[in-house]
C-alpha cells in the first residue's frame, strides 16, 4: 500500500524522516540529481588504466572475440606454437566454467592466466587488470585475451586492448555480421577461419565480407585455416606490423 501523503511506498502513513519530522504534502524531500554519466564509465576507467600499463611496456594486447565453436582456441594454440621463440607471448583466457582451454594453451608452454567468469557472459576491464597483475607479461610481449564465446556482450566492454579481432568460421552463417553488427563494428580485424571446409559448404565469402564492411567499412579481413595452416602467414604478418606499432616510441 502506498503512503497517501507522499506516495513513497511505505505501508503506513508517516511524518517523514527529515530533521524536524516536517513533512507537509507538496513539500517532498525528494530532489533531483543530475548525473549525465556513462554507465560504462567505470569499465572505461579500468580499460584506460590497462591501456596505459600495456603501452608503457610495449605490449600489444588483442581481444579475441567470436561465437562458441569458431575455432578460436585452435587458432590461438597454433599461433602460439608457430611463433614460439619469435616473440614473448602471454594469454588471458576467459572461460565460463572449465579450465580446459587454459590447459590447452599452457601445453604450448606459453604463460596463461584464466579468468573464470562463472555465469558472466564477457570479460571486463577490471578482471583483466587483475589478470595482468598475476600474469606480468614481459615487455614487448604479444598478449592474447581470449574472450568468452559470445558475439553480443563483449562488444561493449573495452578491456584496454589495441584491437578487437573477431573470428568467424565459414561453418557459421555468412550473415553473422548483420546479426551481430555491434561486434563487427567494434573489431579492427575479421578472421574467416576454417576456409579448408569451403568446398563442402554453401558459404559465400565475398557476400560475408560485404556484410561485414557494411557494418564497418574500415574492417581488415584475413582468410585462413588454423587446421591446415593455410593463410596463417598473413596473420603473423599482421601481428608483426601491429606489434611494431605498439612498441614504445613507435
Amino acid at each position: 500500500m502506498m503512503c497517501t501523503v507522499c506516495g513513497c511506498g511505505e505501508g503506513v502513513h508517516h511524518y517523514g524522516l527529515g530533521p524536524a519530522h516536517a513533512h507537509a504534502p507538496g513539500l517532498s524531500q525528494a530532489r533531483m540529481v543530475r548525473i549525465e554519466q556513462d554507465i560504462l564509465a567505470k569499465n572505461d576507467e579500468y580499460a584506460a588504466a590497462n591501456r596505459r600499463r600495456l603501452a608503457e611496456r610495449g605490449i600489444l594486447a588483442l581481444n579475441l572475440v567470436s561465437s562458441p565453436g569458431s575455432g578460436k582456441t585452435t587458432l590461438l594454440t597454433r599461433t602460439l606454437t608457430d611463433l614460439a621463440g619469435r616473440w614473448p607471448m602471454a594469454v588471458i583466457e576467459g572461460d565460463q566454467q572449465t579450465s580446459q582451454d587454459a590447459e590447452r594453451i599452457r601445453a604450448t608452454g606459453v604463460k596463461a592466466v584464466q579468468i573464470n567468469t562463472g555465469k558472466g557472459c564477457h570479460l571486463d576491464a577490471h578482471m583483466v587488470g587483475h589478470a595482468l597483475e598475476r600474469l606480468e607479461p614481459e615487455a614487448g610481449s604479444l598478449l592474447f585475451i581470449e574472450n568468452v564465446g559470445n558475439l553480443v556482450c563483449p562488444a561493449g566492454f573495452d578491456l584496454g586492448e589495441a584491437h578487437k579481432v573477431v573470428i568467424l568460421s565459414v561453418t557459421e552463417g555468412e550473415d553473422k555480421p548483420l546479426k551481430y553488427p555491434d561486434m563487427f563494428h567494434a573489431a579492427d580485424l575479421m578472421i574467416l577461419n576454417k576456409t579448408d571446409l569451403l568446398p563442402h559448404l554453401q558459404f559465400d565469402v565475398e557476400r560475408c565480407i560485404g556484410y561485414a564492411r557494411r557494418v564497418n567499412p574500415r574492417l581488415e579481413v584475413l582468410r585462413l585455416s588454423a587446421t591446415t595452416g593455410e593463410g596463417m602467414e598473413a596473420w603473423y604478418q599482421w601481428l608483426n606490423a601491429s606489434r611494431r606499432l605498439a612498441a614504445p616510441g613507435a
Partner: protein
Amino acid sequence: MHEMSLCEGVLQLLEAHAEQEGFRRVKVVRLEIGALAGVEPEAMRFGFEVVMKGTLADGARLEIIELPGRAWCLCCGESVEIGQRFDPCPKCGGFPLQITGGEELRVKELEVE
C-alpha cells in the same frame, strides 16, 4: 545478458553519488539508451529490479528514455535516422553512413531523498 552488469554499473554510480551528495534513497532512475547501444530495454528493466534489491535503490522506478539512431549520409549531405547500425540511408539507399547518435548508455538523472 550483459544488461545485468550494466545495472551493476548503474548501482556503482548511484552509490558514488549518494556519498558525494548525501542522499540515502533513490526513488527514480532515468537512463538514456540509444537504439544502437546494443541494449534491450526490457532486459535492462529485469536486471535493474534484481540488482537494486537490498540497495539504496530498492524498489526505485526505472525510466528509460530511448534515443533514436542517427547518422550522417555523405551522399545526401544530411543527418538521417536509422534503426540499426547497418541500415542504408533511408533517402538514397547508400552506404556507408557515419553514426552520429544512438550509442548513448547514460544515467541522466535521479530523484532521491
